[in-house]
């Protein structure tokens, strides 16, 4: 089930809230209802994968219990290996087999397994828990609590990646089983912001990006830049909107999850970008990969190597393809460069630093979005103007895709890009959703905005998409 779906918004979330708070006087039951609802949320996509997540939770809980009794490096290593093995089978096996085949010239039988939703997130969450138990920083004696920590539906599919220490105390609080108006109102407000970002803004950029990446070989440089910028905005609004919906829903259950985005496109260097983009992933990579590798404690060369290794693996975490590895490598290299540059004591002027960072991030997204390494190179050539004079101009290209721009039906075509323009203003000028929810007050203005935004977004969840080839 997705947050931006009728099922979630119209019955799942309201029903889960009602049942949870109705059982508030019996905290264990309330908690059990939330776990059960989270499993329904997960199983809605495909029931066959429920045993997978339940098995993963059971095995990790058992290993954690054993680690609580006696710290054991081999046992920890076994636990981590089991988690990575599960991830490897479902996410990376075919990538590995295909690459081996390419090297050896063989033709292997690919597994072609469907990637279980959220597997990267619940695997990392549990690895972090095992490590923390081994370090004596966490312990959880109750299976029900642990199961809820892993399955809690707001974070299950797309994060944030949670720390046991920041969640379990909240789950344990009896007062959190009763409705708290401040959290209900601010949670609803944040949920509405997230929906607007995802449904009204991100999905407006999507057809521009899709059309551009689909026709990169013919695009002029300005058209290619528009396509890449559209994707840059799409991925931000998509992911941060989804995260806002997650944080908003969790807040309605009186649970505060860590923020995951903090206006990343305002960053003036890549280091700052990674403090603002997918913050909980950065935190995980730093604490459980970069620092154990030695961090910055063994000289410049080793630090650079650690940064590169961390970001190569971080890239691979995003997807089983070389394009993601290259994307991670680019960011790792950029971090090394920034690190070396900052030691020179010659900071760039802020506007220049911002522009360099933004352009780098946008160009690196080409590897993240392209279907293959070859497609990425095609887009990079288009960005550089290598498609020459015969390429499609911006006007011709935008004219050609005008029909697929997702302007709400019934509005003038000229307004098709209005949400995109609004999105740009939000990214660079407005306070972000974190700040907005912190200063939230249940005023008439906010009430009108939310009451308008919720139906407006729900009405955009399903579009009547025509058969494109309708000559007949």
């Amino acid at each position, binding site marked *: 089930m997705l947050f931006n779906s*009728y099922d979630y918004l*119209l019955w799942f979330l309201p029903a889960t809230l009602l049942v949870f708070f109705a059982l508030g006087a019996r905290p264990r039951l309330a908690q059990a209802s939330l776990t059960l609802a989270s499993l329904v949320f997960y199983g809605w996509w495909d029931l066959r994968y429920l045993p997978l997540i339940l098995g993963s939770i059971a095995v990790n809980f058992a290993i954690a219990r054993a680690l609580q009794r006696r710290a054991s490096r081999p046992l920890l290593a076994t636990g981590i290996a089991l988690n990575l093995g599960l991830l490897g089978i479902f996410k990376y096996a075919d990538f590995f087999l295909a690459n081996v085949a390419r090297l050896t010239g063989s033709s292997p039988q690919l597994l072609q397994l469907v990637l279980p939703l959220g597997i990267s997130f619940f695997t990392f969450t549990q690895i972090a828990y095992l490590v923390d138990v081994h370090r004596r920083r966490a312990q959880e004696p109750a299976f029900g609590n642990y199961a809820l920590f892993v399955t809690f539906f707001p974070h299950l599919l797309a994060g944030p990646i949670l720390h046991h220490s*920041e969640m379990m105390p909240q789950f344990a609080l009896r007062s959190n089983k009763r409705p708290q*108006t*401040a*959290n*209900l*109102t*601010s949670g*609803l407000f944040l949920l509405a912001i997230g929906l607007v970002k995802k449904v009204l803004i991100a999905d407006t950029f999507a057809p521009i990006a899709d059309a551009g990446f689909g026709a990169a070989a013919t695009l002029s440089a300005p058209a290619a830049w528009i396509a890449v910028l559209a994707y840059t905005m799409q991925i931000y609004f998509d992911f941060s909107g989804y995260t806002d919906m997650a*944080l908003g829903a969790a807040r309605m259950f009186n649970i*505060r999850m*860590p*923020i995951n985005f903090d206006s990343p496109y305002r960053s003036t260097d890549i280091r700052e970008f990674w*403090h603002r983009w997918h*913050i*909980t992933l950065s*935190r995980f990579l730093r604490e459980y990969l970069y620092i154990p590798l030695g961090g910055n404690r063994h000289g410049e060369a080793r630090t650079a190597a650690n940064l590169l290794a961390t970001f190569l693996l971080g890239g691979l975490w995003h997807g089983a393809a070389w394009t993601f590895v290259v994307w991670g490598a680019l960011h790792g290299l950029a971090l090394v460069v920034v690190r070396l540059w900052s030691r020179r004591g010659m900071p760039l002027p802020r506007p220049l630093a911002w522009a360099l960072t933004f352009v780098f991030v946008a160009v690196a997204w080409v590897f993240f979005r392209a279907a293959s390494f070859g497609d990425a190179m095609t887009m990079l050539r288009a960005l550089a103007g290598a498609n020459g004079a015969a390429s499609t101009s911006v006007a011709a290209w935008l004219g050609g895709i005008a029909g697929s721009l997702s302007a*709400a*039906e*019934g509005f003038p075509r000229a307004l098709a890009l209005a949400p995109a323009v609004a999105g740009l203003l939000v990214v660079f000028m407005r306070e972000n959703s*974190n700040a907005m*929810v*912190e*200063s*939230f*007050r*249940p*005023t008439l203005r*906010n*009430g009108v905005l*939310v*009451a308008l935004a*919720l*139906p407006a977004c*729900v*009405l*955009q*969840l*399903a*579009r*009547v*998409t*025509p*058969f*494109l*080839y*309708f*000559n*007949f």
Partner: protein
Amino acid sequence: MNDTAPSPLPAPAPAARRWFAAVLAAAVATLIAIGAFNAWVDPFQQYRIAGRHPPRYYASLHRFVVPGIVRNATYDTLLTGSSIVENTRNSTIGGICGGVGLNAAMPALTAYEQGLVLRAAFATHAPKRVIAVVDFTGFNGAPDARHPLAGPLPAYLYDGNPLNDAPYLLSWSVLVKSWRIVTGDTSERFRSDADAPWWWADGKRFARTEVVRGLDPRDLNRQFPQAPLDLEQMKQSFDRNILPVLAAHPGTEFDIVWPPYSIVVWGDYVQRGQLDVTLAFKRFVFEATRNLPNVRIVDLQPVAAITHDLDNYTDLYHFSPSVNEWLIRAACSDAHRVRSDNLDALDRQMRDQARAFDPAGLVAR
């Protein structure tokens, strides 16, 4: 950096409670009002055949309208097929086959969708006859394959379950259509002729010159590229999508019609080595249905008088309204039936015609 968000500013609880209740009530009331309006206008005829306002058969939204009309219209004979049978009037079907006819054609129809349409129809009807015109390509690929240009399938409209109709009732696109219907706004492309809801023939010429225009005799597939056919996939698709419907409704007569593509299509099959697979699939369908007394196979593909006269076509596949009428007449009579005693002869005939076809001569003429 402080990762965990602090508490929001406190607000007086009663006021905040009122705010929460009022906002939710306003949002829910808005959605209920819109849903009720869409249900009342019902632009895709999901709950009733249009009566208050003239019906709108949207030129590219067959997949949204067809499930409603097959469930809610009154008919004795149902015609299902791809764009090649769109130019068939309901009155033609009824006039030839008796009773009332309904054309439920969809462009680029696949067997999966054809199965859904048939199941939607049988959920509320027991039609006397179903004429199912089938395309080879519709069976290719996975059993639930769909044409890449067909857009997302509104599956919620096919199951007859009003409890999952939120994407229909709470959709801005549908709201705009409802509003246009109520206000008489005719700015979008649709037909209101309930007798010929999907008709497009008036805007086309049916002539040999149209068929050969842009045709490359060395690569006949280039104009309408078709993927290679996979016999096993086709068999699976037939077994999964069509056969269960035939078997589940013994009281309905089914005419499975192999449509009269132009001979150029068979030339293309020869060029691409697809002749054997198509003929093998036809044989498979015959064998799979030979023990079902309510099923008849009608093979119009070897009828050279039609398929070799390219003036009947506007391109390789699409034939004229008069051929559509002839097709219905054939389905509702005993003509061109495939039986065990003519199966081999029909196979041979088709094979000979296909191999004898000379693409270069076609264009040179």
